[in-house]
């Protein structure tokens, strides 16, 4: 087992004929993912890297049984791409696209939820479960099969941390990059129960950032309902209030969303909180060890 993706995952790539779409289709296939279809309106009938391209998601689903979409469509079309997948019965949409207006998410998130489709992202690196499937853009080299779960609001920092877990000799069950935008389809609180019930996950690494209260909400969940060891890291301790730190999600406003508040909440919930990203692997090793006792 794993979280959200498994050997039955059949991926369709929306925007497969674009540069990013093509590059990551190759990477996903190299990972061992069943990429069964691509969609680019007007390019139906062509083939990209051995993957048949369709004009519509409905066609792609009907012909290939795709059940998961990886979306590289440029921001102005991302909402429509998600709606199309939702209406075609796709159960999981990983939106890699950056700069999707949050107003579009305010429409597609509740719509997808009402139809039973989960959105990961937007502006996210996606999901990887070593030995099973990868949907998104996390570099293949950072993975190694194992029993540590990772959920993160960051992109490259996730790669760094997942890589660190590999380098210390452990491996990952499932890694999810949730995306750093103000409105995301899946939050820590949404993802935690899946790891709690995943028999292949022994410990969870939670990578947060300043801004919002997603980490505090996660801490609340961890305190009451999560039984596995949690190792956390919060980026942005040195960020000044009121500055947007790179993307819209990471900002401290109205005294809320500080690293101190998040660290305190997570520690109070029993998580091991790393001061720096390079401290995480060792904390994971310790957590796994003490959990086994």
């Amino acid at each position, binding site marked *: 087992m794993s979280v959200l993706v498994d050997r039955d995952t059949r991926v369709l790539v929306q925007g497969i004929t674009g540069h990013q779409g093509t590059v990551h289709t190759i990477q996903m296939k190299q990972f061992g993912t069943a990429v069964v279809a691509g969609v680019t309106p007007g390019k139906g009938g062509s083939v990209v890297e051995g993957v048949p391209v369709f004009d519509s998601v409905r066609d792609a689903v009907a012909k290939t049984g795709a059940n998961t979409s990886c979306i590289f469509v440029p921001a*102005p079309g991302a909402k429509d791409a998600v709606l199309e997948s939702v209406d075609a019965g796709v159960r999981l949409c990983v939106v890699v696209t950056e700069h999707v*207006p949050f107003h579009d998410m305010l429409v597609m998130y509740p719509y997808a939820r009402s139809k039973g489709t989960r959105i990961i992202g937007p502006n996210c690196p996606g999901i990887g479960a070593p030995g099973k499937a990868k949907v998104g853009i996390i570099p293949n080299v950072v993975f190694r099969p194992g029993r540590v779960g990772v959920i993160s609001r*960051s992109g*490259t*920092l996730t790669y760094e941390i997942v890589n660190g877990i590999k380098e210390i000799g452990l491996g990952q069950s499932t890694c999810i990059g949730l995306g750093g935008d103000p409105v995301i389809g899946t939050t820590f609180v949404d993802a935690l129960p899946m790891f709690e019930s995943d028999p292949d996950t022994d410990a969870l690494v939670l990578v947060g950032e300043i801004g919002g209260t997603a980490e505090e909400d996660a801490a609340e969940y961890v305190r009451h309902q999560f039984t596995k060891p949690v190792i956390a890291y919060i980026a942005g301790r040195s960020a000044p209030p009121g500055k947007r*730190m*790179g993307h819209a999600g990471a900002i401290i406003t109205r005294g809320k969303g500080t690293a101190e508040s998040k660290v305190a909440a997570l520690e109070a919930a029993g998580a091991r909180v790393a001061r*720096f990203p390079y401290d995480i692997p060792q904390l994971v090793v310790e957590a796994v060890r003490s959990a086994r006792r």
Partner: protein
Amino acid sequence: MVKLAEWQGKKVFRSYGIPVPRGEVARSPAEAERLAREGKVPLPCVVKAQVLSGGRGKGGAVRFPNTPDEVREATADILGLEFKGEKVREVLLEEKLPIVRELYVSMTLDRSQRLPVLISSAQGGMEIESVPDGSIDRQVVDPFPGLTGYEKRSVSKQFGLTPLQARSVGGVLDALWKIFVQEDAELVEVNPLAIVGDGVVALDAKVIIEDDAAFRHPEFAEVRDDRTELEEIAREKEIAFVQLDGNIGVIANGAGLTMATLDVLKEFGGAPGVFLDLGGTDDPKKVSEAFLLMARAEPAAVFLNIFGGITRCDTVAKGLVEAMGQVPTSERFPLVARIRGNNEAEGIQILRAAGVTAISDLREAAQAAVEAARRRP
């Protein structure tokens, strides 16, 4: 962040039917005087600096002249002011209204609920941050049905309005909701919303359009004159540019990695200055562009921290070395580079051959960058 000036926000308000005072914009004392003399703005009036930062009231940027001569003088005084580095280039002249009471309403995003939220307070006129939490009402608005009648009634009840005033406030709230959705706003704030007789009037207007949705609103393309030249170049190249107080320039890819880099630099006593976040990409061209942009910001030292996903490290290293060649010797600065990913060893070799301090370990790399900055005057 596309932040509209007060007069621009009021133009938007007017087009959505929110009552605003009669007013005109002036860019010189003579123009202001003429507007007053010609009766375009009735006297006595209000003259307000048009700047994007708050705190105008305390800074002498709001004046209440009674004659055209006083209007000229007030305008001259205000146009000389500067707020947080922003020069006042325009003033707004408005009629003075008989205000009964000042209220607060705004529409913004509640991130944790993933819903818009209508914020209201009977204590308008001061910054909402200063209003006690118990005096602020928050109602999330579901985007599908949109703002409902009962939510509007709840605000009127909180404000204690007459039926006519409630009707007027209801119209303002409907307009707030429409502006929020149709203009892709991050924030639409009316503070104060003044009760004037049987109705209400928006005395101030704060409208912030979401950057990511700016492509849908070309009409606001001009509304960005608070950016520096470097910020403008960064924006065009889709690089996040943030100015902090320190002297170490940071280039990284991804907000999380960038922030982690700053945290580590600080830990070792460094002071991060300008930082550039390339987003999730490790595109060598973008790395080089960021490097050249950083060179123009005159940092004491630069710490480059790129985690490679797709591109090989040697390709990124080559591009970087090439970009270095374009910086005049006199403007060079010490560079500490950490490029992780495929072909890491080859990348490090290329960088070291070009005289760059290339280190894989984040701790060591950060220490080296702090050390390098410390050695510079």
